[in-house]
């Protein structure tokens, strides 16, 4: 497979995954904002900005600081390189560059989602419609991903898997480092009651991380904090846990590169060990956060190595796609 096309496919997967993660995060925080005693909606949406690492960028200039302004910035703003609409644009541009490798149904899914995204951008998004827009965007993601399951050419599925796994790692780490800061350390003898704010914040994090199904099937459920942390960090059965995705990176790299001794492979294997060593059992969330910060840095380095050693992309398809690889998503100095 041409490295250029591998690069396009990789960024297609990352952009798609980013759109989906952003939508799920917004939905969870929006639901939280409707509960009694919730902090103001705009404050909750600022949390979303922090998770997607756009808080500073949003505050630049003379933007209104309202909930709706934040919502539009995250969902549709042209100037936000990671807005959901821009993510769909990146999916399309990268897909277009590799169009001959995509199936007709995959391309249709990409293109139609993109076209509707443009319409939504021009219509604007009201606070009351946020769930509608998010539902639509998530359906677009599922449609494209379902169509992508049919891709068989060369190593496409493995490159898609690599991009998706690295984006999931990145998002889960951001989610943990932002939302854990608002939670008290876990006291196994005094779990939060079901009607408490702490309980709802944990559930919001679980929903944002697409862990609700895992949570429902976990047992015993009363150990909310410990179970949630395990699901996010070390559980090999949850599709978005750190360890699952670090292992997916190892597996994908082995097939893409055809060797098992590259620097990226070594970094990915080391990352798996580092994740498994995160001290989630103690319940001290400040210690967990410190360990996560280390993993964040290692993940950035891993992204850099993957691109440098195996994808070797000079530029993604468009300037907007290039800009979408924000400095916080990629390590400083990453070759893009």
């Amino acid at each position, binding site marked *: 497979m041409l490295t250029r096309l591998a690069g396009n496919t990789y960024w297609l997967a990352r952009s798609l995954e980013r759109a989906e993660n952003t939508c799920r995060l917004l939905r969870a925080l*929006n639901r939280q904002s*409707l*509960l*009694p*005693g919730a902090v103001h909606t705009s404050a909750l949406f600022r949390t979303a900005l922090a998770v997607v690492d756009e808080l500073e960028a949003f505050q630049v200039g003379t933007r209104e600081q309202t909930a709706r302004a934040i919502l539009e910035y995250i969902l549709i703003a042209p100037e936000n390189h990671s807005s959901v609409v821009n993510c769909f644009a990146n999916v399309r541009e990268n897909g277009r560059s590799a169009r001959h490798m995509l199936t007709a149904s995959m391309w249709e899914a990409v293109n139609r989602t993109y076209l509707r995204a443009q319409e939504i951008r021009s219509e604007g998004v009201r606070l009351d419609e*946020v769930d509608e827009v998010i539902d639509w965007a998530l359906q677009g993601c599922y449609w494209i991903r379902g169509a992508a399951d049919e891709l068989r050419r060369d190593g496409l599925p493995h490159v898609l898997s690599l991009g998706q796994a690295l984006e999931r790692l990145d998002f889960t780490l951001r989610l943990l480092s932002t939302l854990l800061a608002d939670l008290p350390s876990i006291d196994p003898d005094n779990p939060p009651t*079901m009607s408490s704010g702490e*309980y709802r914040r944990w559930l919001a994090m679980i929903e944002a991380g697409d862990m609700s199904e895992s949570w429902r099937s976990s047992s*015993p459920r009363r150990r909310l904090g410990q179970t949630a942390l395990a699901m996010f960090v070390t559980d090999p059965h949850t599709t978005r846990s750190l360890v699952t995705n670090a292992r997916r990176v190892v597996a994908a790299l082995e097939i893409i590169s055809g060797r098992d001794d590259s620097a990226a492979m070594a970094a990915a294997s080391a990352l798996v060990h580092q994740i498994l060593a995160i001290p989630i059992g103690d319940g001290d969330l400040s210690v967990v956060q410190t360990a996560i910060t280390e993993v964040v840095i290692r993940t950035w380095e891993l992204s850099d190595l993957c691109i440098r050693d195996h994808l070797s992309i000079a530029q993604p398809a468009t300037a907007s796609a290039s800009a979408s690889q924000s400095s916080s998503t990629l390590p400083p100095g990453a070759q893009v």
Partner: protein
Amino acid sequence: MEAFDECCSNATDNPYAAIADWLDDPDFSELAAKRDQANNLFVRRGITFQVYGDGTGTERLIPFDLIPRIIAAREWAHLSAGCTQRVKALNAFLHDIYHEQKIITEGVIPKWVVEGNSEFQPLMVGVDVPGQIYSHISGVDMVRTGPDDWYVLEDNLRCPSGVSYMLENRAAMRRVMARSFRHNDVEPIDHYPDLLLQSLRSCAPDGISNPSVVILTPGAGNSAYFEHAFLAQSMGVPLVEGIDLVVDSQGVWMHTTRGLAPVHVIYRRINDDYLDPQAFNPTSVLGVPGLFEAHKAGLVTISNAVGNGVADDKATYLWVPDMIRFYLGEEPILKNVPTWRCADPAQLEEVLDRLPELVVKEVHGAGGYGMLVGPSASQDEIEDFRAKLINDPGDFIAQPTLALSTCPTMIDAGIAPRHVDLRPYVLAGRDETHLVPGALTRVALKEGSLVVNSSQGGGTKDTWVLCEEGASC
């Protein structure tokens, strides 16, 4: 008969002030659009029920009314305490009648109330159930007739349904009327599935540290199948049918791809008769052979327990206030509707004299079927019921026709008052009996109708319990 309008009471703390802007808005089009949006949501999510006997076998949407029923924190505290008290007493009653029968020997209720009741299950005599909890999930049907006048109509202790509508109504409301939730502190109810699971697990057989819970459904053809699937999904437990389970001397098991897996608590949505062909109806293909023996041996918990019907039929209902006094030593918080027992010749005579003004119900009836609402019945219907009463008086009770309260409801021409009832769901576990702050409100959509059942043209509403002012919810 003048009905109490919950919305237009002059109370200073009228909870409907929370949505006054909707109700006062002369432009109905926005609300109508929201209603369509909510209906689309229900269609998309397949929130349906099946009406038996309509011949088509098709699934229907339960009509959803966009205007919520609103209950103030103070009112809810009263209702919640009353429901909890009632369910505690009913659980104590069920334990007692299947064991010592003190309530009979001490002369509080007559023996025939229990042993003459076709729902009394002799096989349950002497069977111990974990935590002495028989009714883990109870639906207490209530109506209101005045600012402080709430009456319990009946206690549903077998398989009360409808809780999925309570939760889905809230989800739909949050979706289409999000702004109202930002401006009002409405108590959340989303943790109901978690609470239910916690209650069920707490009632697992003794010695099981990590109990496995399943929901037993008759299958996709059942009218409440959507609810069975909804609860299984939201609790994260398997939804099983009878053929998925097997019983041996060690317990109950389910067939899985990894072999047999143990089952410790069965939340069954199958009637007693069909639960076990070896113990009950031998022709049942829905049940699990040997299940009742496993239950008797303490290997599995059946929720709700077998034989609960004796405590929730309309004849036993009369004695619930006495049960509360007898078992709990407390005065009932919630009132019963005054009731005539037609098995008593003197009471029957009075009922026959006043038939056009009374509501007559079958003792074992449900779903709004087999009842007479005197004031709205035709002369032929009244005479039909008169014959039935004379022929088999023990099968009926009668009650005054209550002026059920009304709530503002959307109709084609705008907003109008319609009669409502209320069904909160009480969850009883080993250590706690409690309920989420919310309930299913059923509404009679036809003008003047008092029948709220979905099978009879009723609809549902979201029920908001407002947080106490200044308190954190």
